[in-house]
C-alpha cells in the first residue's frame, strides 16, 4: 500500500492512490515535442493526468500530478483549420508544456478543460487540495521527523546564554514565525515585544544555529523599519548587542544583508532599510547582492526558453549565460560560504536578513548550516533543515508555488526553494562523499514541492498549517522518503563529523543541473538510476556477501577451536576485530 503509484484496480493499469478518483477519460492526440503527435487515452483523476499511448509502436506514458499545472489554455477554435490545431495547451511548473489535440466536433475538449481547471486549481472551486483527500498509509510518520525542542537540544540548547521562549506560542508575536524561538538568555519577553515593533512583520532576530565549540551563532530576522527618516530603536540596538555578547571574545556582530545595497536603500521608501553604522556601533554590515524573487522568476523563465521544447544548440553556453541562472546560484552560494566561514572561524556571530526574511534569508541560513553541520547532510538531517529553516520559519510556499491557484501570473510566485535545492545539488557534485542522500532525493523533493500529494509544502506558515490541521489531515513527504530510504541513499557517503564544506562558487565549477532542467528531452543523455551508484551498490552487496561468508567460516573455526583447546578465543571478540577491519 505504501508503494509509490498505489493501487492498480482502476481501469486496467492506471495507477491510483488511495483517495484518488477517476473524473473523466478521453481519446486525445498528445503532441509530443520530440516525437510528434501520438494518439492516446487520457485519464483525469482528482490527483493526476495520466496518458497512455494507443499506438502499438509507442509505449509512451505521461503521469503528471495536477498540482504541477500552472496554466491551461485552449488553442484553436471550432473553426480552426489544420491538423491538431484544436485542443489544450498546459504549462507546467516543472519546466515543460503538454499539448493535446482533440476532435473539433461537439466541443469535445470542454469536459477535459473543465475537469482540469477544477482539479488543478481546486482553490477557485472551493475544493480541497488533494493532500487532504490522500489516504495513503506509510509505515513511518514523516511528521515525527522534526521536533524543534529535540533539534535545539541536539545543538546543545538551551544553555547559559540562550533560552527557548514560548512567547509566540499562539503566534501572537509574529504570525509567520514558529511557536518556539531561541533568543538570548538576558533578553526578556517584554524586550522581544518591543524589538518586534521595529522589524518588518515582527520577524525579530532569533537563533538558527550555534557552533558546538566556539559558540558563535547564526541569527535570522527581517529588515529593520528604518524608513526615510532613519528611525532608530534602542531596544533593537540593545538586542543585537545582547546577541553579540552571548560570546564574550567577540567585538563585532556581522550583519549580512542578502540584498544588493541599492535595493536595501530603496526599501527605506517603503519603511524598511538596514542597520546603520551610527546606530549599531558593534556591528559590521555587508550586502550580499542577491536579487529579489522577481529577478529569479524571470531568470528561470529564460532557462525554460532555452531548454524546452527545443534545446538551444548553436550558442548554448552564451545563451545559458544570458539567463544569469548560474550567476544567481553563485551569489547565493558565495553568500552562504561567507556566513559559514565567519561562524566556523569563530571570528563573529552572524545576523542574516533580507527584506522579509523568508526567501533569501532562508537560503543563506540553511545553506550555511549545511556547510557547517554534517548532521544536515544525512537524509533525516536534511529533512529537519528544510522543515526548520524553510517550513517553520514561514517561507511562503503557497504563494511562491501557487498551490491549487489558477493565477499563473501572480507576482508572488518565484523559484526560491528550487534555487536552494540547485545549490545543494552543486554541493553534492563537488563533495560526492559528503551527503547521505543522492540526486534522486532532491528531484523527488522538487516533484512533490508541486504535486500537492503531501501536506509538507502547503500553506505559507506554521500558524496557517496549524489552523488547517495539516499534520492530522495530510501525509508528510518524509513518510514517503523515509520508508524508501535505500532508494535515496548515496552509496559513496562517508560519515564525517565536524567537517566544514566550502564549495567552490566560481563559475568555472558551477554547472547547469541537466538531469533536472532538461530531463524531459529524450535526446539529452541522462542515466537513471545513476549507473555509477548502481554498480557501486552491487560491489557493496558483493563485499557484504564475502564478509558474511568469512564470518560464518570463522564462527565454524572458532567452534572447532573451542572444542579442541582449553582456552577458546572469544568468537565475539573475533567478530568485533573483523568489524574494524572493514
Amino acid at each position: 500500500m505504501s508503494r509509490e503509484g498505489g493501487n492498480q484496480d482502476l481501469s486496467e493499469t492506471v495507477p491510483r492512490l488511495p483517495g484518488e478518483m477517476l473524473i473523466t477519460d478521453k481519446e486525445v492526440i498528445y503532441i509530443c515535442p520530440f516525437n510528434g503527435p501520438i494518439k492516446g487515452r487520457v485519464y483525469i483523476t482528482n490527483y493526476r493526468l495520466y496518458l497512455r499511448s494507443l499506438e502499438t509502436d509507442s509505449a509512451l506514458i505521461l503521469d503528471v500530478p495536477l498540482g504541477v499545472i500552472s496554466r491551461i489554455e485552449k488553442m484553436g477554435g471550432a473553426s480552426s483549420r489544420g491538423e491538431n490545431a484544436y485542443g489544450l495547451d498546459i504549462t507546467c511548473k516543472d519546466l515543460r508544456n503538454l499539448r493535446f489535440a482533440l476532435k473539433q466536433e461537439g466541443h469535445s475538449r470542454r469536459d477535459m478543460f473543465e475537469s482540469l481547471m477544477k482539479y488543478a486549481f481546486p482553490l477557485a472551486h472551493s475544493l480541497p487540495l488533494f493532500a487532504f483527500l490522500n489516504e495513503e498509509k506509510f509505515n513511518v510518520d514523516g511528521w515525527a521527523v522534526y521536533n524543534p525542542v529535540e533539534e535545539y537540544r541536539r545543538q546543545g540548547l538551551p544553555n547559559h546564554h540562550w533560552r527557548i521562549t514560548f512567547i509566540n506560542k499562539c503566534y501572537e508575536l509574529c504570525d509567520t514565525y514558529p511557536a518556539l524561538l531561541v533568543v538570548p538568555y538576558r533578553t526578556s519577553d517584554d524586550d522581544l515585544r518591543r524589538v518586534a515593533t521595529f522589524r518588518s512583520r515582527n520577524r525579530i532576530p532569533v537563533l538558527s544555529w550555534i557552533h558546538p565549540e566556539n559558540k558563535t551563532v547564526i541569527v535570522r530576522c527581517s529588515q529593520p523599519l528604518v524608513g526615510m527618516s532613519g528611525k532608530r530603536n534602542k531596544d533593537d540596538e540593545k538586542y543585537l548587542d545582547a546577541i553579540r555578547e552571548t560570546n564574550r571574545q567577540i567585538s563585532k556582530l556581522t550583519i549580512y544583508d542578502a540584498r544588493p545595497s541599492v535595493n536595501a536603500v530603496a526599501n527605506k521608501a517603503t519603511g524598511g532599510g538596514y542597520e546603520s553604522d551610527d546606530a549599531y556601533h558593534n556591528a559590521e554590515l555587508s550586502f550580499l547582492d542577491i536579487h529579489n524573487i522577481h529577478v529569479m522568476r524571470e531568470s528561470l523563465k529564460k532557462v525554460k526558453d532555452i531548454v524546452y521544447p527545443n534545446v538551444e544548440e548553436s550558442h548554448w553556453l552564451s545563451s545559458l549565460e544570458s539567463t544569469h541562472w548560474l550567476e544567481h546560484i553563485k551569489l547565493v552560494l558565495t553568500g552562504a560560504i561567507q556566513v559559514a566561514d565567519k561562524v566556523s572561524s569563530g571570528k563573529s556571530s552572524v545576523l542574516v536578513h533580507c527584506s522579509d526574511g523568508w526567501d533569501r534569508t532562508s537560503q543563506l541560513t540553511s545553506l550555511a548550516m549545511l556547510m557547517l553541520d554534517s548532521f544536515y547532510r544525512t537524509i533525516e538531517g536534511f529533512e529537519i533543515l528544510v522543515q526548520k529553516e524553510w517550513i517553520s520559519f514561514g517561507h511562503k510556499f503557497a504563494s511562491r508555488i501557487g498551490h491549487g491557484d489558477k493565477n499563473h501570473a501572480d507576482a508572488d510566485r518565484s523559484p526560491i526553494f528550487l534555487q536552494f535545492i540547485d545549490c545543494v545539488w552543486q554541493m553534492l557534485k563537488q563533495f560526492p562523499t559528503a551527503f547521505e542522500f543522492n540526486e534522486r532525493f532532491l528531484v523527488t523533493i522538487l516533484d512533490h514541492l508541486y504535486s500537492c500529494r503531501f501536506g509538507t509544502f502547503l500553506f505559507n506558515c506554521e500558524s496557517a498549517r496549524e489552523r488547517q490541521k495539516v499534520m492530522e489531515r495530510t501525509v508528510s513527504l518524509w513518510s514517503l522518503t523515509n520508508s524508501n530510504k535505500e532508494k535515496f541513499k548515496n552509496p559513496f557517503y562517508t560519515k564525517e563529523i565536524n567537517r566544514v564544506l566550502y564549495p567552490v562558487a566560481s563559475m568555472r565549477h558551477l554547472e547547469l543541473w541537466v538531469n533536472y532542467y532538461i530531463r524531459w528531452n529524450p535526446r539529452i543523455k541522462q542515466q537513471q538510476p545513476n549507473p555509477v551508484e548502481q554498480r557501486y551498490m552491487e560491489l557493496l552487496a558483493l563485499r557484504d556477501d564475502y564478509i558474511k561468508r568469512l564470518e560464518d567460516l570463522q564462527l565454524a573455526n572458532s567452534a572447532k577451536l573451542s572444542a579442541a583447546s582449553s582456552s577458546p578465543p572469544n568468537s565475539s571478540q573475533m567478530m568485533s576485530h573483523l568489524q574494524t577491519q572493514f
Partner: protein
Amino acid sequence: MEFSELIYTGRAQAELLRGGEAPRLRGTLCVTGHHLLLSPEPQSTPDLWLLLLRSVDSVEKRVAGDSGTITLRCKDLRVLQLDIEGVETTLDIARSIEALSSLESVITSFPFFYRPKGLRLGDAWHFHPPERYYKRVARETTAWRLSEVNQDFSLCPSYPRAVIVPRTVDDDALARCARFRQGGRFPVLSYHHAPTGTVLLRSSQPLAGPQKKRCAEDEELLAAVLACGPPGARGFIVDTRSAQAAKQARLTGGGTEAKAAYPGWRRLHRPLERGRPLQESFMRLVKACGDTEQSMDLWLSRLESCHWLAHVKEALTTACLAAQGMEREGACILVHGTEGTDNTLLVTSLAQLILDPLSRTMTGFQELVEREWIQAGHPFQLRCAHSAFSHTRPKHEAPTFLLFLDCVWQLSRQFPLSLEFGEGLLLTLFEHAYASSFGTFLCNSEKERCLCEVRTRTHSLWSALNQAKEQRKLRNPLYVLNPLTIWPSVEPQSLRLWQGMFLRWSRPPESSEVVWEKVWQIVAEGEKTEGAQPTASASA
C-alpha cells in the same frame, strides 16, 4: 656531456612555488642535461623534486634587486614559479632551461638515457605489432590479408611495415595506389566490424589534381573493399574537409574521388578544424582557464568563444556518423582529409571506441592508441613540440591527440561503466605525448623510429603503465564489459569542459578521484575477503 655548454650556471639557491596547496620548497636548484632538480634543505621534506626539462613549454624571467623569478609554464599545463638568489644566476638558469627544453635532436633526448628499475629494454615493444591486430581480423574474415609491401618504408614513409588490405589486391596494385595518394597513404584497413561485416578504412587524399586524374588500381581497391563487405554493401567516403576546401585542394595536386570512378561509393563532407586554428583554440582555452583576473560572470561566453567544445562536438559527431554507417546501414567507410594523419585518425579511432567493446578495455585501448595513432603515423614530434603556453608562433603544432583524449573522456562520462580505464590513463597519455621519459611517443613515424632505434634503445610507456603498482591510478574500478555500441549524446548540453584536464591544477577540493578511491577500497576489500577464505579454512 654535450649538454654542458648549454648549462651556463648549474646551481643556485631557490624557492619553488607549485601553486594550489602544495607546500613551498626551498633548497638547492640544479640544472642537468635533461632535468631541473631541487634538493630541499635538510629540515624540510626529504624528497628530491624533479622536472623533465622537455616538459617546459615557456620560460619567463623577471629580476628585481639581487634576486629573480622564473615562471615555468609546463606542457602538462602546470605553472611553476622559482625564486632564485642572484640576478646573474637567474638569467643564466633561465637561459639554460630555454636552450635545453627546446633541443630538437631525438637521439640525445632523455628516453635514450632513462633506465628505470624493474623494466627491461625492448620488453613491451612487441605488445602491439600490426600482425597482432591482423590475427584478430583473420579470425573474423578471410577477405583481408597482411601485406608487407611497405617493408622498407619506400611506398609510404608514414605507414608501418605491414598493413591490412583486401586479399584480392596484390602488392603491385598497392604500389600504384600509393603513387595516387598523398604521402603514399593508400586505403588500408583500420577496423573490421564483425557484427555487420563492414569495414573502416583510412587513407590520404587522392592526387587528382586540376585534371581530375584517375587511378585504375585505386578504383579497383575500393571496389574490392565493397566486394569483401556484406552483399550489396555501399560505401561512404567521409572527407574531413568541407566540399569547398576539398575542391580547392585540386589546385595543389590533391582533391577527391570522382563520383563516376567509384561506383557504390558516396562522398560526405564533415569539416573538422585542424592545424593552427585548432592549436589556437587550445591556447585560448588554457588561457581562459588560468585567467584569475577576468570577471567570472562572463566565463560561459568566454568558454564558448574558445570553440574547444565545438571541436569536441564535431569530432564526436563525425565519429558517430562513421560508426552509424557501419552499424546501422551496413556500409563500408573510408575516412580521409588531406594527409590522413590527423583528423582521419581522430575519426577512425573514436568510431572504434563507439563500436568495439574490445577497444574499451585497458589493453584494447593501448593497442588502439599504438595502432591508430603511433604506428598510423600521427606526427607526434611535430604536433606536440609545444603545448598551450609557447610564445613561438605555432608551425606544425596541433592538439589533435588531446582532442581525441577529450572525446574519450566525454565518452567515459556518459558511459561511466563501459571503459576499463579511467581519467588517470588519459591524463598520463596527454603528459607523455608532450614530454616523456619513454620512447613511445617519440618521432613522427615508424620509419623515423626505426632509424633512431627507438625500440631497442628506449623503454616503452606501455610496459611502465602495465606494472601492477600503476593500475589503481589508471583503471576504472566500476568497469563491466558492455558488449553494445555506445552512442554518445553530442548535444552541447551533454558535453562538459574536461575539468580534470583543463582545471587540473586549480580543482575543487574534492572530485571524482575521491569516489574512485572509495570504490577501489571496496573492490580491494572484496578481494582481500575472498582471499582470506582459504586461509580461514586452512587454519581449521
